[in-house]
């Protein structure tokens, strides 16, 4: 049933696929990022309570959503790497981790900048802020662990295992605003209920979220191509491409 997938486990195929997809993904991401942010920052009405300072939502929410989305992508890749021993999946774990760490850092920093005018403080030890910080530590742990072994292969496998273990934190972050009574507001956009945000603000936000998502894929393509070249540098197809 999944036979059509098999060629994609081959590093060479993935390398060329990423090379073909990358310009399209990057172009779309930048276009949507510009569209969503300019629309959101300049052309949406101000919030009746928060005034203009709510506009940072167009950076904060996409980064926060994708900090978790990127982690689940990394964990799925890690699971595939551990169970089916697919090399490309292993490398993509290491390729995704820094992207996710940066998204998490963006979410935390924009959140702090938003918290200062709204809550009167840069940081509170609130459930969602704390669990997002833990997520950052998990990303850093995966990155640090992968680099701690003299054998690159072992490092990648161990880091994959840690990524799978860390999945336990995702539901905690997601439901933290519902489980604990916290300062951080609940989710504004859900699949099931009518969003508690005005459509004029919702559309640019959705575009920004999509832009962050596609940007993640584009960056993943770039980093995965580099990882494949580094790991396969002695293979004939890489040498043929390099022209010697």
């Amino acid at each position, binding site marked *: 049933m999944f036979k059509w997938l098999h060629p994609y486990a081959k590093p060479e195929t993935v390398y060329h696929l990423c090379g073909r997809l990358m310009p399209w993904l990057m172009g779309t991401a930048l276009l949507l990022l510009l569209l969503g942010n300019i629309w959101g920052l300049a052309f949406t009405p101000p919030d009746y309570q928060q005034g203009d300072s709510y506009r940072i939502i167009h950076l904060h929410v996409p980064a926060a959503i994708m900090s978790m989305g990127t982690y689940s992508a990394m964990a799925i890749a890690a699971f595939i790497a551990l169970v089916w021993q697919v090399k490309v999946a292993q490398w993509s774990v290491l390729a995704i981790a820094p992207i996710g760490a940066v998204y998490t850092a963006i979410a935390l920093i924009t959140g702090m900048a938003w918290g200062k005018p709204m809550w009167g403080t840069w940081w509170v030890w609130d459930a969602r802020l704390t669990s997002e910080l833990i997520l950052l530590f998990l990303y850093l742990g995966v990155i640090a662990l992968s680099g701690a072994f003299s054998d690159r292969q072992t490092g990648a496998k161990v880091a994959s295992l840690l990524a799978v*273990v860390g999945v336990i934190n995702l539901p905690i972050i997601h439901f933290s605003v519902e489980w604990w009574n916290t300062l951080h507001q609940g989710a504004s956009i859900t699949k099931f209920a009518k969003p508690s945000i005005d459509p004029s603000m919702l559309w640019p936000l959705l575009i920004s979220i999509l832009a962050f998502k596609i940007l993640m894929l584009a960056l993943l393509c770039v980093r995965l191509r580099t990882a494949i070249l580094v790991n396969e540098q002695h293979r004939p197809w890489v040498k043929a491409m390099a022209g010697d």
Partner: protein
Amino acid sequence: MVTLGPFLKRELRLLARQKADWLNPVLFFLIVLSLFPLGVGPEPNLLRIIAPGVIWIAALLSVLLAAERLFKDDYRNGVVEQLVASRQPLLAFVLAKLLANWLSTGLPLVLLSPLVALLLNVDMASFIAMVLTLLLGTPLLSLLSVLGAALTVSADKGGILLALLILPLYIPLLIFASAAMEAASMALPYHGQLAVMLAMLLFALALVPLAVTSALKINVS
């Protein structure tokens, strides 16, 4: 299927011969605790307020201290490699490690808790909560440190890395344990926090040994 007995006997014999391995973390726990009154001042009420957090952070640090050496010797002298090569299930070995680790680092903390309560001016209600949270929490701490030790066993620079791996996973435990003790000090019920801690312990007990065995196999191959 290899039984637990021989492995456990071996672990306990090793611990009995290398007393520094488990005595040092326990002493470290007491030293960290006695530093806090010196650092923040000996005001009894202040000590009572900070006691839950201080106890649990000291417990974590002392368990971390013991964790680094958990698999190191067995890895260096080839025991882990032989066990993996023998194609016997590693589970018994891992469970014996776990049990020995808890007996040598977790249990002493529970036994020392009356002394700690005295040092930090903890009242009776919080003391009972402290013993209960330590009983539920230290096995979980052992599970996490065994996992961290197994992941980093062949790493070049294990020490600080181990802390970076375990700390994020440890934070939920810290939150619920100190919340239970805080509730107890205000004479509120804390069954909920204990139940969550028990749930975390059972969940970890079911899954962590599997992760540990596969981490050991990765490190050996």
